[in-house]
C-alpha cells in the first residue's frame, strides 16, 4: 500500500517536473539552444502567482493565466532582445548568452523582491488534503498534477493539430526545408520561446501553491528539467512527458522502497543518484533518449 501511495505521489510530482521541462525541450527542439535561464523563468512564474494573489487578494489558482501570460511575454522579449542576436554567433555565444540571462533575471529578482523566502498562505486548496481510503493527497499537489496534465495536453494538441504547431515541428525537423516551404524561422523561434515561457510560467504558478519562492529557486528544478529533456529525448514532447513521470516516480518510490526493506543505499539522500543513474544507463544504450528522434 505504501508503495502504491508513493507511486501516486510520484506521478503527481512527475507531471509537474514534465511541465517544467516541456518548455526547455520545445526551445531546444526548434532552435538547438539550451536555455540556462529556464529555471529563472520558473522563478518569475512563481513570483507572478505570489504577488498577483497577494496584491489582488485572489486565489493563487486564478492567477495561472497571468503567470502564463508573463511567461509568454518573457519568452518573446528574451528572444527578440537577446537570443535572435546570439544566433548569429557561435554555439558557445548562445550558451553564455542564456547563462547571462539567467544571472540577470536572478539578480533582478533579488533586487526587486529581496532574498526573503515567500510562501502563499491563503488559497482555496492550500493546507487542505484529500483522503481516499488509506491515501492522503495534498490538494495543491493534486491540482498541480492534474492541471499540468491539461497544460501538456493543450500543448500536444497545439503542436500536432494546428497549422502553427505543425510549422513549428517542421522547423524543428529541418529548418532550411521548412523555410523553403514558406515557414518563417524567426517567427517559429519566437513562438517556441513564447510556448517555453508560457508553460514554465504555468508550472511556476502551480508550484507556488505549495512551494516557497526566492530568487535562486530555479536551480533546484532546472537540473531535473535538463535530466528529463535528455532522458526523454531532445525535442520529443512525448519523451519529456514520460521522462518527467519516470523521474517523479523514481525519486518517490525508491526511498519508500528503501525504507520498507530497511536499506541505507535506497535512502532519501540517494534518491537523485538513482534518478541520474537511470539517466546514464538509458543514454548509454539509447543516446537519443527514450523517444528521441534527433541525431
Amino acid at each position, binding site marked *: 500500500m505504501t508503495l502504491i501511495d508513493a507511486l501516486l505521489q510520484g506521478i503527481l510530482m512527475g507531471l509537474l517536473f514534465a511541465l517544467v521541462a516541456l518548455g526547455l525541450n520545445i526551445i531546444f527542439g526548434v532552435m538547438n539552444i539550451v536555455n540556462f535561464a529556464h529555471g529563472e523563468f520558473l522563478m518569475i512564474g512563481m513570483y507572478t502567482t505570489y504577488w498577483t494573489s497577494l496584491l489582488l487578494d485572489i486565489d493563487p489558482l486564478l492567477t495561472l493565466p497571468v503567470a502564463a501570460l508573463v511567461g509568454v511575454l518573457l519568452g518573446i522579449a528574451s528572444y527578440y532582445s537577446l537570443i535572435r542576436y546570439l544566433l548569429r554567433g557561435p554555439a558557445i555565444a548562445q550558451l553564455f548568452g542564456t547563462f547571462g540571462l539567467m544571472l540577470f533575471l536572478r539578480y533582478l529578482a533579488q533586487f526587486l523582491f529581496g532574498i526573503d523566502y515567500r510562501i502563499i498562505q491563503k488559497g482555496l486548496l492550500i493546507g487542505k488534503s484529500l483522503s481516499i481510503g488509506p491515501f492522503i493527497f495534498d490538494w495543491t499537489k493534486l491540482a498541480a498534477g492534474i492541471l499540468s496534465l491539461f497544460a501538456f495536453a493543450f500543448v500536444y494538441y497545439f503542436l500536432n493539430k494546428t497549422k502553427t504547431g505543425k510549422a513549428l515541428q517542421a522547423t524543428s525537423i529541418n529548418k532550411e526545408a521548412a523555410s523553403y516551404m514558406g515557414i518563417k524561422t524567426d517567427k517559429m523561434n519566437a513562438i517556441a520561446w513564447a510556448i517555453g515561457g508560457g508553460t514554465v510560467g504555468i508550472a511556476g504558478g502551480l508550484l507556488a501553491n505549495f512551494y516557497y519562492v526566492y530568487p535562486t529557486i530555479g536551480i533546484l528544478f532546472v537540473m531535473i528539467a535538463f535530466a528529463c529533456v535528455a532522458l526523454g529525448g531532445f525535442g520529443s514532447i512525448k519523451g519529456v512527458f514520460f521522462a518527467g513521470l519516470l523521474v517523479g516516480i523514481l525519486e518517490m518510490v*525508491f526511498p519508500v522502497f528503501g525504507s520498507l526493506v530497511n536499506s541505507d543505499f535506497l535512502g532519501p539522500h540517494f534518491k537523485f543518484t538513482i534518478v541520474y543513474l537511470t539517466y546514464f544507463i538509458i543514454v548509454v544504450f539509447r543516446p537519443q533518449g527514450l523517444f528521441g528522434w534527433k541525431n
Partner: protein
Amino acid sequence: MKYRKTVLFSIVVFLSLLLIVPPLFAQEKEIRIGVLYPLSGAAATIGRDLQRAAELTAEIINNKTPGVDIPMAQWAGIPNLGGAKIKLIFADHRGEPDRGADLAKRLILDDKVVGLMGAYHSSVTKTVSAVAERYGIPMINDSSTSPELTKRGLKWFWRTTPHDDIFNKDLFELLKGLTEGKVKGVKAIPKDQLKNVAYACENTEWGSSVAKSIEGFAKEYGFNITKKILYNANSPDLTSEAKALVSVKPDVMLFASYLSDSLLMIRTLKGMKASTNFFWGQDAGFEMADFVKTLGTDTNGVLTRTVFIAKIAKVKKVAGQVNALYKEKYGDDLTGATARSVVGVQTWAYVLNKAGSTDPKAIQKACNEINIPANDLVMPWAGVKFDATGQNILGRGLIGQYQKTKEGMIDLEIIYPFELATANMIYPFPGWK
C-alpha cells in the same frame, strides 16, 4: 624670478608631501577582520541577518553607544589599541566549502585581515579553519555547531557557541523532564508516549553530526530510534522523506534542517496531515526570523533549540538593550544565529583588547586566556572561556516553542532550561488542523 621659482618649488614639494604623508597620521587606525557568511544562494537570508548583527556589534564597539550596559559600548574603538576601529570585511561563500577556503586565503593574503570569523555552515567552517591553521591566523567561530570542529587539535580555532552534543543533551533532558513532570504546564507524561523517535537531518557535515549525536543520546536516555533519514537540503521535493517519517508513526519527530528544507518539510507534513506528540528542530532553519514570517501559525507548537530568545530580556537586561537596537534597525528580533554573531564580534573585540596587539601570537595567547563575564553577554551564558580544544565551556542552550497568541501572532517562548521557562509548554504537538 628666482624668488618665484623657489616659492613654486616649495609649493610643489609641500603638495607632494601632503600626498605621501596623510596616510601616516590622518588615517584612522582600523583592524580588519574577515567574516565569511553565505550571502547569496539558498542560505542568503540567514547570511544577510548574520551580517546585520555583526555590523551592528561593530558599530556598538566603534562608537559610544548609550543605553547598552556592556563596557564595550563605551569604548569607541579598541582601548588597548589606541581606539582602533574594527572593520569587518565580508565574503560570500554561498555555502560552498571550497569557495570558503579560497575566500579565506584571499582575505588573509590580499586583505591582510588579522583574523577570521564565520562561517555558519559547519562544512565551510571546516575548510576555512584549515586555511587559517595553515597561515597561523586566528579564527573565532561564532555559529557552527558540528562537535567535530573542535576535535581536530587546531591551534588557531576557537568556537564561542555551544555545539550540537550540548544541544542534543538539552533535548533529551527536556524529553526526560516531560516524563518526570518537570516541564512548566505539563503533567508527567508516560514514557511510552515519547518512546519512538524518528529524525530527518540534512546530509552535510552539520546534519550528519546531529544525527550521530541524537543516536548516541537516544541510547543513553533509553529512547528508540525508529526511523533515521538523511536527506539533501537542496532537494526540490521532500515528499518521500516525509512519507518515510510518517510511516513509522513516531512519537517524537526531530529535524536538523536549514531554512528552505525546514519550510518545505513542514508544508509537506502538513499536506499529509502528519501527527506526532513532540516536534523539534535543531536551530538553523527552525529559529530564523523568516521561518515564522513564512510559515506563520503553522509553526504553533514547534520546538527549536537555540541560544537566544528575545524573551530572555526579562531576566537579562543587556539582551533586551541590544535586541532593541537590532529590532529598531532591522525590524526583527535577534535570533539564536544572529545573537551568536553579536557574541562573535564581541569576542573578537575583547580578545584584541586583551592582546593589545594585532600580532597573531599575541591574539592566540589572548584567545586562550580570555574570560568574558556573563554580564557582558546578550546570551544567557556563564561567559566565554575556551578550553584546550578551543571550545567555549561557559555556553548553554535554550529550547523554545512557537506559540500562537490570542491575537493570532506567533511568540517564541522559553521551555528549557526549566527554571527559565516563560510559558506553559504546548503538549502534545497540536499538528495542523
